[in-house]
């Protein structure tokens, strides 16, 4: 079992100090510390399963023909042994489907990073207004980003398209202002 250590001095803390729901003093550095322990701490890591060897009349694993199949993949339907069965988000998947899902962004829970195109477009539309000459270049880029990435996945925790809408509106207004200005200057000559 792992031991829980003080996060300041890294001294192991005795189990008597766990789940006290209040701050206790670290025996070594006297830092006030609170430790909330959950059942998983006592259970530890579960050992991985091994695929059982195939008998005569049993179905075999798609990836390991000598192993007994225990479950089909929820996505492709291939038979899987205990070793190949990846349980993720309440579903049983084979490693290939897992990899494909990750690459194509189908499994949201495997996403580790996302570019916020809506924020980028909005900032590109707003900040250059401080030195407005820049908007001649940035407004079309902001508009392009907003339109091109309208359907791209944005933040996992933010769902509205309001930033895209504001970016498009602002960039549109800037382009309109520049067009009007240029037409006015040309027509005056």
């Amino acid at each position: 079992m792992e031991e829980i250590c003080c996060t300041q001095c890294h001294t192991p803390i005795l189990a008597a100090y766990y789940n006290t729901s209040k701050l206790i003093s670290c025996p070594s550095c006297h830092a006030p510390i609170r430790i909330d322990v959950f059942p998983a701490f006592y259970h530890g890591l579960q050992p991985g399963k091994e695929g059982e060897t195939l008998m005569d009349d049993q179905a075999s694993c798609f990836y390991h023909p000598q192993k007994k199949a225990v479950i089909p993949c929820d996505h492709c339907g291939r038979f899987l042994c205990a070793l190949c069965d990846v349980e993720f988000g309440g579903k049983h998947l084979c490693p290939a489907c897992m990899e494909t899902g990750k690459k194509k962004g189908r499994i949201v829970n495997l996403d580790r990073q996302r570019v916020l195109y809506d924020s980028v477009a909005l900032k590109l539309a707003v900040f250059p207004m401080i030195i407005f000459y820049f908007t001649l270049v940035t407004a079309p880029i902001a508009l392009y980003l907003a339109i091109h990435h309208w359907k791209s996945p944005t933040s996992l925790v933010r769902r509205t398209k309001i930033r895209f809408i504001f970016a498009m509106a602002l960039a549109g207004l800037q382009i309109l202002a520049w067009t009007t200005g240029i037409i006015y200057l040309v027509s005056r000559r």
Partner: protein
Amino acid sequence: MDDRARNRYRKLPGRGPRRRGFISLPLSRCSLYLGDDHVLAVDSNGFSEDYKRFYFSDIQAVITRRTRRGAAWSIVLGLMIACFFMGALFVEAEPLRIFFWILSGTFLLFLLVNVFRGPTCICHIMTAVQEDQLPSLNRLRVAGKVIETLRPAIERAQGDLRPQEVDVGPNESFQAARATHPPRQPRAGGHAIRHDNGTIHRMAFAFLLLDGILTGILLLYHTATMTGVSSVLTLAYSILVVVALVKQYGSDIPGTLRGITWASLGFVCLSFFLSYVVLMTTLVTGRPATMITQWDMYRTMIHVSPQDSRLVMGVYAFSAACSLALGALGLVRVKRHRHDSASASRPGQNWG
């Protein structure tokens, strides 16, 4: 397989910068979200987001440690308020007086917000394979609230704790682990804690106390020689305070003494700032044409007497009070630390 629609997150309280190192620019802000079967830690820099998931079934422990960051900020803000309040009281020029009132009001607002948010903390989440900091949980109150929100969800996923696991298992395992592996030495930031008897601290606080006494005398009887000696002392304790701060890292210097040393550094910075204000005021009101070199400026400064203006009198009084308080407190605490260390290192006893 597309479970995009199924995932819904609820924002958990707290938001904080992820710091990498002692002094670093917080480039990303971290927040926590509650998902169906996991907690999502989102690090956002405004252009992209990084995600880290902690599944309820994997979370082993949440470790919260109270820090002094909030208290340190309160002290710094308090000193700033005192400084600008004093400026507002003693400066004669009306626009400058209004400016100081606005500044002290602004810092008072920051101080109230800091006090209202409560004590600060550092929170770590532990799974079987990692221990990760949760920067969004940087206040004790918020951390407590989030832990109470997470607890039912985690216990639903992991089941309840069996009494035999809680009472017997960990203690037995702990004792067994202790029997097979020697106990680890306490460490600070990955290094073993070393003993420091606080000699540098003692020198710094002695100089500080001496300077406090000298400044107190200067308040009543001002001479250029004594001001010169005082400025040499100021320079000496400024250097010593910095050396003491470096030396106390990873040492067994107690928390109170560390706090006094940090407060002394704050005071050093503030006194330099106040000296700068006094110098600028003297430059403006004096004869700028006569001050050409740095040496001219210094000569002008040491001839500035507390009796010359209310601002200088206020600065001297504040400086003397702070020096005396910090110096005396520090010396008492160093003495106690040395005494504790000496008694603990006698045969048959262990210090630390």
